[in-house]
């Protein structure tokens, strides 16, 4: 499963950077979103994939034993998703404003 996810992460990064290098700012925002997803999936994959072993302690245990899914990467991803959502919302509004102001649909180099 790790290999498939690694390929997906790589593809997302490639797509994200490709989109960011287009001259259109709508594609820039889409590229930013893809980069965010790639990073989140990378954290998820790096946190070891464990299936069917939730980090739950049974009565009487004081420590998790054996194989269990690490909840911390998921907590990190959750935080990153919320932050990413806010920032993408801002970016979209910014693009809309820029679009309404003439001549700024393309990111011009100075």
């Amino acid at each position: 499963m790790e290999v498939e996810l690694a390929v997906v992460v790589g593809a997302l990064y490639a797509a994200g950077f490709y989109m960011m290098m287009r001259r259109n700012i709508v594609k820039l925002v889409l590229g930013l979103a893809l980069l965010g997803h790639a990073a989140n999936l990378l954290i998820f994959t790096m946190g070891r994939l464990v299936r069917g072993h939730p980090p739950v302690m049974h009565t009487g245990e004081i420590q998790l034993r054996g194989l269990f899914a690490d909840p911390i990467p998921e907590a990190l991803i959750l935080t990153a998703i919320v932050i990413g959502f806010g920032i993408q919302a801002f970016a979209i509004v910014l693009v809309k404003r820029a679009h309404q102001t003439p001549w700024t649909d393309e990111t011009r180099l100075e």
Partner: protein
Amino acid sequence: MNHFLVLPIVIPLSCAVISFFFWRRPALQKVVGVVGSSIWFAVTLLILHTVRREGIQVTQLGSWPAPFGITLVADTLSAVLVLLTGLIVLTTFIVSWSEIESQRVAFGYCPLLHILAMGICGAFLTGDLFNLYVWFEVMLIASFVLLGLGGKRPQLEATIKYVALNLIASALFLAGIGVLYGVVGTLNMADLAQQMRGPSPPNLAPTLATLLLIAFGIKAAMFPLFFWLPASYPAPPPPVSAVFAGLLTKVGVYSLLRSFTLIFPPGNHTSLQLITLLSALTMLVGILGAIPQKNLRRNFSFTLVSHIGYLLAGLGLFSPLAMAGSLFYLVHDIVAKTCLFLFSGIIERLTMHSDITKMGGIYRSHPLISGCFFLLALSVSGIPPLSGFWGKLLLVQAGLNGNAYNLVAVMLLTGLLTLYSMMKIWSEVFWKDSTRDALVASRSPERVVPLPMPLVIPVVCLVGISLLMGLFPSPVYELASEASRQMFDADAYIQAVMGGKR
């Protein structure tokens, strides 16, 4: 347990909330800003005092023991930076009194500035890498809105560039954090440092170091990654670009200094050589970019980029003396660059231009202000009795000790070129006779209004601080060398955060 370390974060947050209550009363928001940031400044002084007296201060939030919860740590470096943040934000609020029109305040300028301050302080104080990411985002979202507020075309364009580059940096930083957690299994900086120095250091350390170097390098405006800065900083009103210039890039520099002294153990010589090379290129390319600029604030932006190189040179040389030099320069740079951008506000107000070839004659009409600018320009270029000189002196000395003659040559050359660039501005803007445009502007009836005091007093005070730091360098030097000693003593940091001190 010292809970007062949360105060520099809680005070701006409360001020922001209070400002929201006065949404329709811009004047009251400004009062809240000045009063709140004064209280805050006092608290940061108290923190520095405590850190000097009792050593590294640690707060475990929610009383979770170190590697599990979020830790706030204040060593001398963090305390000094928090103090400077307090000073700069207070200055900005005072300047905003006259320089920010009520329209901007009506769209939330004051609460945003508080939140920006909170983000910067959080980044300086946190002892957890993921928490650092969160503070970066707090700071960024506030700076995005501050940059775009006003919605004019150049501002929107600048904001798009700034947003794009900073979000790439954040995505790379986040990826770095993910891999680091996967490899090491912790994100607490002290714990990371312990694991990296342990008997079996984890793999991938050079990869991670490079990933973080790029991510923080974008934020710090390091050589190949600085192009967003001159494209975006000249757009917002002067107080905003002043607070950005003074503090935002310094957060990137701080993160680089912290992660490459604490998390990635020394002995990784390739990355140090890389940093040295990049710092030299940052200095040279930055100042060569500044010299041909005709736009005042673009010129200052390139100078700002160039001097980031001095801050990284100390990290590249990697000796306590060099680090002390960089930290001295950091203190000087925060004050001087903020002041430089505030001066751009004064100059643009007087000449109603942003093109230096169309300015002139300010020395004749405002000799006091011009004198202050002259002192500041010399200080930025590093002329002996002023504050920019001492940091450079220490860096040059450390470079000679470490046989890094090329770097020393670049540092001295950059100083010389900065002097040239600053004197060009001095002669164009202040010394030469007014051009016809400027004369017409100065004779028109609305131009005879004197400069507003809330703009002049902070600028003169900042120049005064810079002058005092230059004339009496020993207290600043002591602070810088103590901070540098602490940075090279990772065990003490780990002990303070992890070990059963409390």
